[in-house]
């Protein structure tokens, strides 16, 4: 389901890939090859332990991002929240890890090993996040799941991913309507939803209301699933299906992209191994 952003629920649950229909080399790349190549590159980057490999790693991910023609605003938007968390974690490392002192201010000591490790972690994080964005942002989500299925993802898992994706927005909207209705009746946590004359409810009672809300959502989704299964059965869902190859056969340029990416992977793995040794 690709829902337009204007219909997205207010709290930002957005899985749509609005840039999936651009016409860049990354968009034209065969999805199965793209998954294999970029995942291999992501894991090669996760292997990096030497600081000297961080600049080429970031340059390669920036090249892939540039080739994908995805807007920079998207990159920044996706980096912001996990970046804050990551920043909090790596901020501590230079102060607690290592033995070679770089600088000292009173009881605060900056260690070289900790600083190097923090820079490697940040470099890996930014590069992997950028490549992940290229992988998922240059194909519609359904195409990516179909490509994963053609690569051997179990059918039950693929079906569950697609169905969860299909109903996520519906259930999210339903849940927020239920929460709003609760608020209008004087229940819920946010005091702004409570009428002035509403008595302050005890904490346990409110927790009970939230549990009832979650339970009701589960029951509604369970009941909806019966109808969904019947509709799917009418379309022949329960019949056995073999994994099918991806509908678009890869061209020589697709294979060239995969070969080039795997060559980069190999160079990175070997160089990192040599440097660490």
């Amino acid at each position, binding site marked *: 389901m690709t829902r337009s952003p204007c219909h997205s629920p207010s709290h930002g649950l957005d899985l749509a890939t609005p840039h999936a229909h651009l016409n860049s080399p990354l968009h034209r790349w065969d999805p199965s090859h793209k998954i294999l190549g970029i995942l291999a590159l992501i894991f090669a980057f996760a292997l990096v332990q030497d600081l000297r490999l961080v600049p080429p790693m970031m340059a390669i991910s920036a090249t892939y991002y540039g080739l994908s023609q995805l807007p920079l605003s998207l990159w920044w938007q996706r980096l912001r929240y996990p970046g804050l968390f990551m920043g909090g974690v790596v901020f501590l490392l230079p102060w*607690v890890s290592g033995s070679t002192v770089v600088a000292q201010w009173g009881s605060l000591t900056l260690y070289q090993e900790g600083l190097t490790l923090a820079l490697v972690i940040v470099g890996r*994080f930014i590069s992997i996040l950028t490549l992940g964005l290229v992988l998922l942002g240059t194909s519609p989500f359904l195409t990516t799941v179909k490509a994963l299925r053609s690569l051997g993802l179990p059918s*039950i898992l693929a079906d*569950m991913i697609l169905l*969860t994706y299909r109903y*996520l927005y519906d259930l*999210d909207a339903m849940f927020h309507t239920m929460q709003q209705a609760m608020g209008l009746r004087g229940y819920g946590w946010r005091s702004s939803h409570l009428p002035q004359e509403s008595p302050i409810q005890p904490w346990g009672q409110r*927790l009970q209301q939230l549990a009832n809300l979650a339970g009701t959502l589960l029951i509604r989704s369970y009941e909806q699933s*019966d109808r969904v299964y019947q509709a799917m059965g009418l379309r022949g869902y329960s019949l056995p299906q073999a994994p099918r190859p991806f509908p678009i056969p890869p061209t020589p340029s697709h294979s060239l992209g995969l070969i080039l990416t795997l060559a980069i992977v190999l160079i990175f793995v070997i160089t990192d191994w040599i440097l660490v040794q």
Partner: protein
Amino acid sequence: MHIADGLLPAQVCLGGYGITGLLLHQSLRRIDRRPNPKAEVPKASLLTAAFFVASSLYIPLPPTSVHLVLNGLVGVILADYAFPAILIGLLFQALVFGHGGLTTLGINGVIMGVPALLASGIFRYRPAGVAREPIAGSQPRPFTLGLFAFCAGAVGVGLSALFFFGIVLATLPLDMATHTERRILYGLLLAHGPLMVLEGIFTLLVVLFLHRVKPSLLPPPARRVAPAAPLQETP
């Protein structure tokens, strides 16, 4: 409690994928043994989506507010489908909110999924006749049902916290003595004590609500009492 991309060495990430692959294989094998394995896929998928949405609930826990993890409740309700459901939830969390990541999907699957499986086991091995409709004449006992649900919910989040902090402390070279790391681990786990209680109470309340309103949503206990002989009508 999700580990982000880049934080862990690739060996740990690959190890996480290995364990997750094995557990997923086991779960799918158990699902495949069912008479019609695809029949429950829509139910499991919609419940996965519902859990994903419900986990956005924030609950005030003075002086702050926390959001629920719900992996214990996922284990309780989805049973065999819990592990695939957790993996899908983690995938969507990485895609939508940037929590976790692609390289750490495996290790995050272990952190959240193994406790969910354990929670499922705890709830499954509750005494017979306390869940669903009265079985063979034995009356449902909400207290026992609630107790097992509480344990499942609390163990789910507690074990996840233990795995998360254990893995982070073990893999990051913090140059600390073992006893210092252990103290930090205990301290962090202690800080998660109120969360475990909250998650346990929430799981208990949801399970008792479902027991009252829609008992068929709760999986049957592993050991059931033998069905009683039907009552003979007296002429």
